[in-house]
């Protein structure tokens, strides 16, 4: 804890490093300020023990000192219960062993939304740490005709106030300088009811007597008493943070509190409410003195709620269409439909280009390297495996880009607003919408995004069904299967089938959620409070940053996990290798390249496993090669495609040819001559992929977010059994209808 006597950071000038905490409301532009301060020197990790993201970075201050900056999760209050807000409070109070107590707090305030933002400021002031206010979004305020004066705010608060336009990087150097001038704000005179003030003195006195007298010796008696009264206030209004546990659970104190609360409620006073209202009275004063809206003489006691200004009116106009009963939903469907069509259609040429590059890479390796395991590993294991998957990065990048644009522009919050009623019918929450939508790109960030859902059961339900949203890793599989068998029906049919896959996932998710929420995840009606930020032009630099970050994560997965699996799988399929004489014998007896490849596959370890599995999966229409593919897909779904690539190409490297996977698949036949791959088999496999949970990374994340193995294991069992039954049903019933014997 800071010494109660220092009131500025001058003494820190001597130190080499200081810790700066960045606090602020969600949507206050805190991230852009953080980016502006730290540039590229950022790191994202996790707070140990909780699933809250920890963002840290560093920057150099004008005097040469280094500031370690912690970007706290956006919060509305320091007393509330969501995991994000809890962590923010703990860091600010220095309660987390993994993060040093901040020497300076930089509070980011949205100038266009001053009143609500000031609530957090009022709590930060009560914390008593040296503070600087970054008055952000000055441009938005100006465009709304709000003249927010940093000087007057500084006079009101007693701490440096620096105007900033985060996304334009304006004001950052001044902010850095101001950190050195950070001051502890004088505690405002929050006007509490008389009776409550008396109770505070009573409880505060009690705490002082029972408290640690060492504290009292380092400061004056007055100061010490003030601090005990402040502590009493925290206890009386219901703050139950961990640092208070030792205090309010002890006997003399808990009785004191109980009696105080009782006396106050007899008078009709609720301490929590009185406290919040006192804060807002102060906020009204400060805001009136600081903000002048155009068109009013002094700006005193202006009620922002009662007049519309230009930019707000513009937002309203857009909203009147986008959230309209009829037009809103239409627009929503159009936007989502365009998203998916664009991904499927735009990415194709790029994918073709990458495929060409892969083929040439393989040919090059064959040309330049001597025959043998190394060449085989490069062409089939490495280039074949990873390359095929990298070909899908364009699609994924596009998906991430659209999501980032929707979020940055403010539309996603509207979507949650629109969808809430529907989601609530299934027992979910409007806030589930964004995690579920993100899961269409990848369930991992989607599941991580569920931490904004306060109710644990709603959160669990959302995590359970997130993997049903067909993620980008399934795209390669969908594209392969749909492309092989339905290409002749044209683009529209293919897109239709793909949409069908997505729809199947959504339907499964809805039914699952409904069923779960009715039975073991039942909970009381949940609250829904959602802020609708005003619309803004998405910052393309932010969007680009997001896309690069997320696509990069996918690529690193491709680079590491998939490369690892591709090589392992290649090895499983290559060893033991068919001896040369056996190959020659096969060739001599008229077997073509594919048959030799198949023989090699069957001979290898992978093949043995697949053969062993086959009886279990034949009823679904799958053969042992697909079985091998399914197992390998557990590491990452995309690996299924590369496994198919390897299983069908192994043996051909000897002959110097790189097979086209699709052609190979179509030609494949069972020993009795029947085709292995038929449209029905493809559909059965598609159904499997839609429904099965086949991603180790998802399971790992689910474990982290739910805090144990119970739920992830349940998820695996539930989804895979569902997939098995569904594929079985599809294949058998389909067979009956189309007379394709099993």
């Amino acid at each position, binding site marked *: 804890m800071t010494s109660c006597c220092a009131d500025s950071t001058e003494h820190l000038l001597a130190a080499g490093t200081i810790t700066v905490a960045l606090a602020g409301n969600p949507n206050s532009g805190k991230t852009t300020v953080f980016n502006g301060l730290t540039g590229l020197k950022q790191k994202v990790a996790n707070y140990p023990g909780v699933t809250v993201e920890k963002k840290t970075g560093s920057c150099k201050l004008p005097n040469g000192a280094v500031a370690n900056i912690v970007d706290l999760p956006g919060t*509305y*209050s320091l*007393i*509330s*219960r969501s995991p994000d807000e809890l962590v923010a409070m703990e860091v600010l109070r220095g309660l987390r062993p993994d993060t040093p107590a901040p020497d300076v707090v930089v509070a980011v305030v949205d100038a*266009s*939304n*001053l*009143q*609500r933002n000031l*609530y957090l400021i009022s709590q930060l002031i009560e914390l008593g740490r040296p503070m600087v206010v970054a008055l952000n979004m000055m441009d938005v305020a100006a465009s709304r005709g709000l003249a927010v004066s940093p000087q007057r705010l500084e006079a009101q608060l007693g701490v440096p106030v620096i105007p900033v336009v985060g996304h334009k990087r304006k004001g950052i150097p001044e902010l850095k300088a101001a950190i050195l001038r950070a001051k502890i704000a004088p505690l405002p005179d929050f006007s509490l009811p008389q009776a409550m003030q008396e109770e505070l003195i009573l409880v505060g006195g009690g705490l002082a007597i029972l408290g640690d007298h060492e504290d009292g010796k380092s400061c004056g008696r007055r100061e010490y008493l003030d601090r005990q009264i402040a502590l009493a206030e925290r206890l009386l209004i*219901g703050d139950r943070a961990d640092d208070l546990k030792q205090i309010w659970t002890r006997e003399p104190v808990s009785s004191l509190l109980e009696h105080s609360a009782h006396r106050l*409620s*007899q008078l*009709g006073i*609720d301490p*929590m*409410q009185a406290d*919040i*209202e006192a804060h*807002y009275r102060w906020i009204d004063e400060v805001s009136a003195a600081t903000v002048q809206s155009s068109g009013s003489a002094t700006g005193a006691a202006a*009620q*922002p*709620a*009662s007049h519309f200004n230009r930019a707000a009116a513009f937002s*309203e106009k857009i*909203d*009147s269409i986008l*959230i*309209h*009963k*009829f037009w*809103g*939903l239409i627009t929503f469907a159009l936007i989502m439909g365009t998203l998916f069509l664009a991904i499927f259609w735009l990415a194709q040429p790029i994918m073709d280009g990458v495929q060409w590059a892969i083929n040439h890479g393989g040919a090059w390796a064959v040309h330049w390297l001597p025959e043998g395991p190394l060449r085989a590993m490069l062409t089939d294991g490495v280039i074949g495996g990873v390359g095929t998957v990298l070909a899908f990065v364009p699609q994924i990048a596009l998906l991430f880009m659209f999501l980032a644009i929707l979020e940055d522009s403010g539309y996603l919050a509207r979507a949650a*607003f*629109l969808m*809430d*009623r*529907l989601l*609530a019918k299934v027992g979910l929450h*409007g806030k589930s919408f964004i995690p579920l939508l993100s899961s269409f790109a990848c369930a991992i960030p989607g599941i991580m995004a569920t931490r904004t859902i306060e109710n644990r059961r709603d959160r669990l339900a959302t995590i359970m069904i997130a993997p049903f949203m067909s993620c980008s890793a399934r795209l390669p599989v969908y594209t392969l299967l749909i492309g092989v068998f339905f290409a002749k029906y044209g683009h529209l049919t293919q897109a239709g089938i793909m949409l069908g896959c997505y729809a199947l996932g959504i339907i499964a998710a809805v039914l699952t959620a409904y069923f779960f929420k009715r039975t073991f995840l039942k909970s*009381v*009606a949940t*609250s*829904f*409070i*959602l*802020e*609708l930020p*005003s619309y803004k032009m998405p910052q393309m630099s932010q969007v680009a940053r997001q896309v690069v970050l997320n696509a990069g994560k996918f690529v690193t997965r491709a680079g590491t996990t998939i490369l690892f699996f591709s090589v392992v799988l290649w090895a499983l399929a290559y060893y033991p290798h068919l001896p040369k004489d056996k190959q020659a014998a096969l060739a001599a007896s008229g077997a073509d390249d594919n048959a030799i490849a198949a023989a090699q596959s069957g001979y290898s370890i992978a093949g043995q496993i697949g053969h062993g599995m086959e009886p279990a999966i034949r009823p679904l229409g799958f053969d042992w090669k697909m079985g091998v593919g399914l197992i390998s897909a557990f590491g990452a779904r995309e690996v299924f495609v590369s496994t198919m690539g390897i299983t069908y190409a192994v043996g051909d490297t000897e002959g110097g040819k790189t097979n086209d996977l699709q052609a190979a698949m179509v030609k494949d036949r069972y020993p009795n001559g029947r085709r292995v791959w038929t449209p029905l088999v493809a559909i059965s496999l598609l159904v499997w992929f839609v429904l099965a949970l086949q991603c180790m990374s998802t399971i790992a994340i689910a474990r982290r977010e739910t805090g144990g193995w119970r739920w992830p294991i349940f998820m695996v069992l539930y989804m895979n059994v569902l997939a098995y039954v569904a594929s079985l049903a599809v294949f058998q019933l389909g067979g009956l209808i189309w007379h394709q014997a099993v």
Partner: protein
Amino acid sequence: MHDSNFSEIAKLNTTHKHRTLADLAVGGQSKVVSVHGDTELRRRLLEMGFVNGVEVTVVRRAPLGDPIEFRLRGYNLSLRRDQARHVYVKD
């Protein structure tokens, strides 16, 4: 869910149902009188600015009637009908 301050409720006129945020028409405006509900909900609502005397405007309702978008203190906020019913407003 309704473990709110009994003394508060006793103070109100219980012979008629009190007007709540959920009763306001779109475009309607009123002042907050009191906030009810369980402690966590009350705290959230109060902290977001629904304190006594604040002016709230109904901006719109979602296509299916729920949630409702309000405007107060210069920003927009959505609440479900269920929560809006816990905020009593001036007749």
